[in-house]
């Protein structure tokens, strides 16, 4: 499988990006054999030098550190309530203030990064695997299989992913695994479109015909011959979808389908406190909201940089 190589952190993605894409190969062909590696190095160098990528990676790294080690350096226990200090405005004692149960908002924001940073990447990974397999099958076999599955994909895509997820999560019962499977399958359908288009172009090329003439079976032709050549678009899809996955996970936790209170979680914390906004307790809601915004922006900066390097 491709996607086992992509991992879920920026650093890992960075290594696999320039593996083998059309552009790199075309350039390699022009420059002579053995230079594919040089181009890959060049792409990584371009990426590491680009400002937006570095900013995005720094923010993402910060939240990953918070998710893993947050409990060690958070100023307070995110679960400990203090009913004598509820709804306190930001101060030296509580930099982000306290919530309606007197819990430290800063600590909850730090530790609240955990769920989203597990669910979103895992769901995107699942979606990439499903989408790649489906797209390969559709693009390679075409015919009735492509028509029938294509129609079903169309029907699903007639609804925003969040709404589809909503329906299925309610029907199957809200839990973190359900969230992952539903978002993953939803994105798999979207990704299958891109992969299918790329495969349709590839399957007409000589190397595919050569593989068939050699007597390779369909599985080998799809996964060993075609797959490495459509890896570029798949990696770009992964990074772009990761941003949307964070969007979807945050939204569904806000609607109450993610991790349940009192465990700290950005979306769930916002849902628990937003009705106090009108009373003026803005810090309880605003800081988790800004945390979501910063994470999404970071992932998008990384995704855009990778896309522009791969396409260049």
């Amino acid at each position, binding site marked *: 499988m491709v996607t086992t190589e992509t991992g879920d952190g920026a650093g890992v993605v960075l290594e696999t990006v320039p593996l083998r894409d059309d552009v790199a190969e075309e350039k390699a062909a022009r420059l002579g054999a053995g230079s594919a590696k040089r181009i890959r190095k060049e792409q990584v160098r371009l990426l590491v030098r680009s400002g937006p990528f570095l900013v995005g990676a720094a923010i993402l790294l910060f939240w990953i550190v918070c998710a893993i080690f947050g409990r060690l350096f958070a100023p307070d226990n995110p679960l400990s309530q203090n009913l004598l200090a509820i709804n306190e405005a930001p101060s030296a004692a509580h930099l982000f203030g306290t919530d309606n149960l007197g819990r430290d908002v800063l600590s909850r924001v730090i530790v609240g990064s955990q769920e989203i940073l597990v669910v979103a990447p895992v769901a995107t990974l699942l979606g990439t695997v499903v989408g790649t397999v489906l797209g390969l099958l559709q693009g390679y076999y075409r015919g009735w299989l492509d*028509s029938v599955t294509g*129609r079903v994909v169309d029907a699903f895509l007639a*609804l925003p992913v969040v*709404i589809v997820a*909503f329906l*299925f999560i309610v029907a199957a019962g809200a839990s973190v695994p359900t969230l992952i499977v539903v978002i993953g399958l939803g994105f798999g359908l979207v990704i299958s479109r891109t992969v299918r288009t790329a495969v349709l172009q590839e399957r007409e090329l000589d190397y595919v015909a050569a593989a068939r003439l050699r007597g390779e079976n369909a599985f080998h032709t799809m996964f060993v011959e075609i797959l490495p050549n459509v890896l570029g678009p798949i990696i770009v899809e992964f990074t772009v979808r990761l*941003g949307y996955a964070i969007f979807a996970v*945050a939204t569904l936790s806000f609607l109450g389908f993610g991790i349940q209170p009192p465990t700290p979680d950005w979306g769930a914390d916002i849902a628990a406190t937003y009705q106090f906004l009108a009373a003026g307790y803005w810090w309880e809601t605003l800081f988790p909201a800004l945390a979501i*915004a910063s994470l*999404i922006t970071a992932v998008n900066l990384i995704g855009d940089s990778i896309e522009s390097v791969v396409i260049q």
Partner: protein
Amino acid sequence: MLWATLAEAPEGPGGGPALKTYLLKRIGLAVLTAVLLSIIIFLAGQVLPGNPGRAVLGHTASQAAVAAFNRKLGLDRPLAVQYWSWLTGLLHGNLGISYQYQAPVSQFLWPAALKSLKLAAVAFVIVVPLSILGGVIAALNRGRAVDRIISTTGLSLSTLPEFVSGIVLIVVFAIELKVLPSTANPPQGAGLLTQLHYLILPAFPLVFVLFGYIARMTRAGTVEALESDYVRTATLKGLSRRTVIFRHTLRNSLLPTITVIATQTGYLIGGLVVTETLFNYPGLGRLIFSAAQFKDFPMLEAGILVIGVVYLVATLVADVIATLLNPRVRLQGAD
């Protein structure tokens, strides 16, 4: 190749009949998709929860009560029969009986949909001129700082969940500046202007999501038109910049924009679930949300189907408009 027809407008000889065939095919495709969508929604609502009576009444209800519930609502019949009676009901305007209210779904669904329509209309009235203006300004200044600012801000805003931007808006405009109310509900008997005043803040998260896409399409269309031969000719024959931009560039560059506006309608409605929940606005989105909380599947299925159908119709209209506005197709149709 059923599903690649979107981009394949007819260009062969005999444009008139080809256009008609294309439109008929496109409509047939939309109907087929709608039927598939209804099957998916029906299966998700009726099969996934296992036993609907058990899901609604909870673990403590007796077996007899669950069986009675299922029998009363006809849920003990074979699936195909249930689907058929649900579908024929839908076509007759009968959306089923809400588990939650024990009353017809349509009694709640249509008023809520009307409310959502109002909110969506306000968002559209704000976003369409704003994003077209933004896209055109970006295109006229392409490569300069203004272009980068508009494009980057637009795309960043469009990636934020509606409740995140909504909260920032509430904090800034309702709490700090106190210029707009933080809820979407005007006092009883408020006039149209007051109602609008209450809908401005809830509309903006939706505006943010749409602005980036529409501005980007407008920018791309305008840049393409600006670099075309006919605009170069118009400039070289000495027409003023204003005439070149308004009469020659914009007329051609807005074509892709119309398509993207129509396609985004579905997503606008998707965003309503979150916006309406955040601003406590009793529209379709909040109706679906409360139906989900009560496991009120008939209400949930009907609401989601309405969203899906609106999206399908919007995409269909976008395709048809794009086809008709495309001069090549139109001219063929005329001769």
